[in-house]
């Protein structure tokens, strides 16, 4: 009987901690969103973060985009050639990059490149009691440390995704037109007749914005809630990558279903 009771208590405890985690995450999120105006006024803090998250991620994003474009073009040509529609290669490359691969892959890379560094930085600040020290000096760490990072990440992510898609299209053009020899005119004209500015490009930007909010927030929350030990920080960093990647993929499905199924 006591065994059963303790089992029920275990379930209750896990639900309670889960709910309180969720509640703290929601409160932190609302605070971060509420600090938008203040961050725009003290833009130098956000600018430093854009520099750190954006400029340093640019190389990995651009190179990945280039190679994804290369591969898309090669694989797409192989399939399209069977149906005698290799002119539609440009359309295939552009649509898959702008709608899906651009936002999703760059969000995954962003989680790996920038999200982990955010989590580790804040986790170590917490472990080194820097956040507590700020609190003692009546400086709010959420306002001073977390919010600029959050808005920096949110601003950076759509730009990175756009760079990824654009470089990918150029990569697809390089392989498709220069290497394989698809006609350059039909490559671009098929693309232009098939890609819609608002439906495809616009929704891609919306997607990357949502992913930017997700990845940055997950990274910050994990860092902020990390156990202040070396082990705790390393766990939090791992969790950032896992949770952010899964969240991005799940959200992508939901967003795609909402945007493109109608």
């Amino acid at each position, binding site marked *: 009987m006591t065994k059963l009771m303790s089992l029920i208590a275990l379930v209750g405890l896990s639900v309670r901690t889960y709910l309180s985690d969720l509640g703290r995450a929601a409160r932190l999120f609302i605070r971060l969103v509420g600090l938008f105006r203040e961050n725009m006024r003290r833009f130098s803090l956000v600018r430093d973060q854009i520099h750190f998250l954006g*400029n340093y991620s640019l190389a990995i994003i651009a190179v990945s985009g280039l190679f994804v474009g290369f591969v898309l073009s090669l694989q797409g040509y192989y399939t399209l050639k069977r149906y005698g529609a290799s002119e539609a290669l440009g359309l295939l490359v552009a649509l898959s990059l702008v709608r899906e691969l651009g936002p999703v892959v760059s969000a995954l890379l962003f989680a790996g490149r920038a999200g982990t560094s955010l989590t580790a930085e804040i986790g170590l600040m917490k472990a080194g009691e820097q956040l507590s020290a700020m609190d003692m000096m009546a400086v709010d760490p959420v306002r001073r440390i977390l919010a600029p990072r959050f808005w920096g990440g949110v601003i950076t992510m759509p730009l990175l995704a756009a760079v990824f898609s654009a470089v990918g299209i150029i990569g697809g053009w390089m392989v498709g037109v220069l290497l394989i020899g698809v006609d350059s005119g039909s490559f*671009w004209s098929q693309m232009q007749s098939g*890609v819609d500015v608002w439906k495809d*490009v616009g929704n891609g930007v919306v997607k990357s914005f949502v992913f930017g909010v997700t990845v940055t927030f997950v990274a910050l929350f994990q860092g902020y809630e990390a156990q202040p030990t070396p082990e705790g920080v390393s766990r939090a960093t791992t969790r950032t990558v896992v949770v952010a990647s899964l969240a991005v993929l799940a959200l992508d499905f939901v967003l795609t279903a909402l945007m493109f199924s109608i």
Partner: protein
Amino acid sequence: MQRSKLDVWVGLFVLLGAAAILFLALKSANLLSLNFQSTYNITARFDNIGGLKRQAAVKSAGVVVGRVASVTFDDKTFQATVTMALESQYKFPKDSSLKILTSGLLGEQYIGIEAGADVENLAEGDRIQTTQSAVVLENLISKFLYNKATDAPTPAGGK
């Protein structure tokens, strides 16, 4: 000095991102061809529009002169009502005729407009009377088979 250097790099990054979005909008989605110039709407009824869609081209002599604005079904006449937005710079006589054509064998369908001889030009809200429906492959094949059957009255059982 350190600060302003950082500003330059961040500015470059943001400009690069903006340029990428612009590239996607202009080069891949061809925003410029979504002409912001003024258009006038004309309508026409078709018995069958085949696979015609919104945003399909309206061409005259192969040149795009407008786009299909909407396709609706009229349950009074049981015909499709197609509204087209033609660019104001192009004028067509009132008795011009429309045809639904296909670019290439399996390509997209578009509307071809052939100029008539009327003195007056089409204006906003006019309806074009002469239309020719899309060629539906199944109808074409059944017509062909029917003609074949009537052409050659071979006796039954004869090879």
